[in-house]
């Protein structure tokens, strides 16, 4: 009989090595599938993917910026996930933050000096993101409302609110888009640091990663939310106010999502559309989970997924394939990684062997 038992904690290095191995294996499988589905040479396809991500300094910077933005959303979701609060509303919270930032840029763009405007945008966007996450958190804390479904629905409410304002703020009228906001004055645009327009976002997110690592591992808050995640009744017993921890953590989670929204609007896109979050709210769930909610490892996992995305874009243009091919590859790789977790958490024991070894012991 086959029998499954839980492992004691596997050393992190070993677990990471297994995951890295499976990613390489999954990439090989993807190569075979690529060859079968399209008749292309898989090695050439991977060459193109690397070319697409690292081909020129500009491409590297764009990749870094994309990694930073995805990492920012993943960091935002992490405290909630550690608390076992499934915040699938990242998409909506990013959009809420982006919307607030765009609103400030449009309404206050010519009324405030740039530094003050940026400060107002910062406050407004984190407040909007926090509000969007606090609503489901409040109901979870108060009535134990299912947060997975609630946060999911909040995404679409945010999308429709943005769709409404995109039409209200249409520029030029009838185009159906807002266009680049404050193109002439550049009011509310994030400043260019170090002569590179991608640099600031990367630096900000790097700082945020460190801050989140410290918050989760070395602060009282981080400890409390881990206890609530493991067992709410234990948390209550030791005097942690579970309701407050849930709402507080989600406000933090939503605020960072809102900040990501501001980075998107003020730092890279300079416009607002309903698809500005581009599925990051969902991709970030996978990024955070792949890294086992460890901010340092998340750098790697968000890099992997963004690399797949930008590489697939390059394949699409080079071979005339469809952009969606990257989604298929990402899906396959994720399936492999998800499946591997089992072998890291559990051990398969063949009980025949066990009996034999018991007998041996008996003989001795």
């Amino acid at each position, binding site marked *: 009989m086959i029998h499954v038992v839980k492992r004691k904690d596997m050393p992190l290095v070993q677990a990471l090595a297994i995951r890295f191995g499976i990613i390489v294996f999954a990439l090989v499988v993807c190569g075979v599938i690529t060859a079968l589905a399209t008749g292309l040479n898989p090695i050439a396809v991977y060459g193109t993917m690397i070319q697409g991500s690292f081909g020129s300094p500009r491409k590297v910077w764009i990749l870094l910026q994309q990694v930073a933005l995805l990492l920012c959303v993943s960091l935002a979701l992490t405290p909630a996930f550690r608390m076992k609060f499934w915040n699938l509303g990242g998409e909506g919270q990013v959009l809420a933050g982006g919307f607030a930032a765009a609103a400030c840029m449009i309404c206050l763009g010519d009324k405030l000096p740039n530094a003050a405007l940026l400060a107002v945008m910062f406050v407004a966007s984190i407040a909007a993101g926090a509000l969007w996450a606090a609503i489901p958190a409040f109901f979870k804390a108060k009535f134990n409302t299912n947060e997975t479904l609630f946060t999911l629905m909040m995404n679409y409410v945010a999308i429709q609110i943005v769709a409404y304002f995109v039409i209200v703020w249409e520029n030029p009228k009838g185009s159906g888009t807002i266009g680049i906001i404050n193109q002439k004055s550049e009011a509310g645009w994030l400043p260019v640091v170090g002569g590179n327009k991608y640099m600031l976002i990367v630096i900000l997110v790097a700082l945020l990663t460190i801050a989140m690592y410290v918050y989760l591992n070395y602060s009282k808050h981080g400890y409390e939310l881990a206890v609530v995640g493991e067992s709410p009744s234990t948390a209550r017993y030791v005097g942690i106010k579970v309701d407050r921890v849930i709402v507080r953590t989600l406000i933090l989670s939503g605020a960072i999502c809102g900040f990501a929204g501001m980075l998107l609007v003020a730092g890279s896109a300079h416009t607002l559309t309903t698809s500005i979050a581009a599925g990051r709210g*969902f991709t970030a769930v996978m990024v955070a989970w792949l890294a086992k909610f460890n901010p340092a490892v998340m750098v790697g996992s968000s890099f992997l997924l963004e690399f797949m995305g930008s590489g697939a874009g390059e394949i699409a243009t080079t071979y005339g394939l469809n952009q969606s091919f990257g989604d298929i590859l990402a899906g396959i790789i994720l399936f492999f990684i998800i499946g591997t977790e089992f072998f890291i958490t559990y051990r398969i024991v063949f009980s025949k062997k066990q009996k034999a070894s018991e007998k041996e012991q008996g003989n001795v």
Partner: protein
Amino acid sequence: MFEFLVSFIPRAVVQGIPLLFGCTGEIVTEKSGNLNLGIPGVMYVGGICGVIGSFFYENSLSDPSLMNPALGILIPLVCCILGSLLMGLIYCFLTVTLRANQNVTGLAMTTFGVGLGNFFGGSLIKLVGSEIPSISLTATSNLFRATLPFAESLGWFGQIFLSYGFLAYVAIIIAVGASLLLNRTRVGLQLRAVGENPATADAAGINITRYKYVATCAGCIIAGLGGLYFVMDYANGIWANDAFGDRGWLAIALVIFTVWRPGVSIPASILFGGLYILHLFIPTGTDLAVKELYKMLPYVVTIVVLVITSTRNKRENQPPESLGLPYFRENR
């Protein structure tokens, strides 16, 4: 007013049927304790598999009018069922056998399924080399859209009740069947037990793994049919990438709205279908922006229902107790 209803209801119904398929499938799945967030992906896969099947069948004939009607329906149907079954098996293998996290697996399935649909859709479009980015399967679609010959002569009655293709009635039959199965049979009782408390069900001698596999795969097949209905019937056999939109998520919203009851999902899906297109019927004049706010309605209504059911705390209106949790016999 009456004329408005006669024109509005059929449109709400055709919008609602894909949601009904997705919702029934997800209810059956969730009753086994599996929260399958891959349903949007599964519906894409169901749609594209049907399209691929009928595309090659139509193109193997010199003239689409030579098509054998039985094969013309069976081929896409079987392809759709196989495709969605495969998705269901992937999900089950990962979450039930390997006990992976259901949310992550589901989201990965959605990424994968939507990607698969758009990739093969795009490839077929390239194969045809048409100028418009879509594939048109008119002959197959006509088979799926065939209505009773005397339906047209029955006036408003025919329009409201008989103007749909056969898959619409299949959707309603499946929903009624699922309702009876869950509430009136031993199998349904055991399935609900698995979703509520797998440890107790296990102790009572129910095979947890088998119930979860069968329920989730059946759920995926039902949801996949929704994708097929959307392409073949609603969209007149025209596949365009991303045309299906976020209907899969709306189907998941509908599960909450119906408080996990397939019987309720029949009127509820038509209501959601109506809410989805309500903005087309409301005279807002030149103010296009307000229409966008009307599109929010289905989601807001879902949130309100979710909150009300959780505050009422009525036991029969709650999500299955172990929804989203993997079951491991040796965990305490």
